[in-house]
């Protein structure tokens, strides 16, 4: 087994075996349950049609998945450094690329768990399942790059900032900003700045694609730009994480302290 796979397996194991990982999944399920129960209990939300409800649930899943990956990304570098676990890891024979890939693999497993949890909710609120396939496909194609980009960016931030708390705070603020299209939606596109933000924001890319596929019934082929956008962000975030974790090249560069 390669070091990257070994690290990914350990990360995934932590999510599914450690109380901390299970608590995270429980919290995510709690949020999805809360929204589902609101749909049942609220007269106003009950008026939303199925596609809209499935779209909202899918957007919530992406936000939770990105949050999970973000926390995992901060913990993978800044948290490990504070626990003294980063130094022995960097002193192993594992290449840095394997370490980054392994961590991202762990985040991909976390996202897979998130997808697995969200599927029953999508089915439940989607009534006769008219939109379930499109939602799951959208989540897989557009949610995965967004969640992994959040995780990789958090790793890069964790490597740059000196404390895990500062890295977590900065990452959460960035996530709130980037995920704002989930709440603002169409009103964001009423100004030039909003349109520009919407055009380059990976969350917008994913939610607009979900909107088109789930609500407007458009085919996947029409979502090329959105797919390119989220994949580009994923690539950028991965490169940033790799760069932040590369061996030092100049005096003063370090990530272990």
């Amino acid at each position, binding site marked *: 087994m390669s070091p990257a796979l070994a690290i990914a397996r350990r990360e995934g194991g932590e999510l599914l*075996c*450690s*109380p901390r990982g*299970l*608590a995270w*999944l*429980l919290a995510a*399920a*709690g949020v*999805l*349950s809360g929204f*589902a*129960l609101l*749909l*049942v209990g609220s007269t106003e939300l*009950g*008026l*939303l*049609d*199925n*596609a*809209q*409800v499935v779209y909202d649930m899918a957007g919530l899943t992406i936000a939770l998945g990105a949050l999970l990956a973000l926390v995992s990304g901060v913990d993978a570098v800044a948290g490990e450094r504070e626990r003294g676990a980063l130094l022995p890891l960097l002193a192993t024979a594992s290449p840095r690329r394997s370490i980054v890939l392994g961590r991202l693999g762990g985040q991909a497993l976390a996202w897979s768990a998130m997808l697995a*949890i969200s599927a*029953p*909710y999508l*089915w*439940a*609120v989607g*009534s*006769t399942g*008219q*939109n379930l396939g499109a939602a799951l496909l959208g989540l897989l194609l557009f949610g995965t790059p967004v969640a992994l980009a959040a995780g990789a960016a958090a790793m890069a931030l964790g490597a740059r900032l000196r404390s895990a708390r500062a890295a977590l705070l900065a990452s959460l603020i960035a996530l709130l900003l980037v995920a704002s299209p989930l709440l603002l939606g169409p009103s964001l596109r009423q100004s030039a700045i909003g349109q520009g933000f919407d055009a380059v924001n990976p969350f917008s890319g994913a939610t607009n694609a979900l909107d*088109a596929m789930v*609500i*407007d*019934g*458009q085919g996947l082929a029409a979502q090329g730009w959105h797919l390119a956008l989220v994949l580009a962000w994923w690539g950028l975030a991965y490169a940033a994480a790799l760069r932040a974790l590369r061996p030092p090249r100049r005096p003063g560069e370090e990530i272990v302290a």
Partner: protein
Amino acid sequence: MKASVPLAVLALLATLGPAVPRLAWAAPSAAPPASAPLKVGLAPDPANPAAPRMGDRMSFHTTLRNPASAPVGGVMAWLTILRVDAGHEEAIDLEDWSANKALTIPAMAPGGEARSDWTLRLISPGTYRVLVSAATRAAPVPAVGASETFAVAPKPVVESRRVLPVALGLPLALGGLLALRLTMAKGDDDA
């Protein structure tokens, strides 16, 4: 054709929104505005559900033809959905129903033809008719193609008997797993 004129006016008012005053009053004139010299054909997709219900999708195919001997420029075509249930007559806001709301064609040659597809998502129950209107820059009174009426059967949007087991069961299952994990860890510790 007689029946389609009031429908066309209603469709124009319902769907153009802010464009209506501009069309109506942009060039005040004593002469009545010209009718668009276009033929509009509208046909449902054969694959549409026979008994549609909320959440289903339906497609309609439109054919726009310029039967005149002169070319026409600035062709606009737009979709209108009308609810025709007695006592509930209304023009439907297309926001949730369709992503395809209108199209423009810069010019159509004499005898020229253009096709387009319109996809609807059936949001509410009721009886509906779909219209596609077409006008030109010079002739703002549209030619209209209308579909047959169709009924959309109601369907519960969010069913509590589906939601509750998932919304309560999944957290309970994960909580149980967490408790089991903690109990096992404590058992190991005691051992």
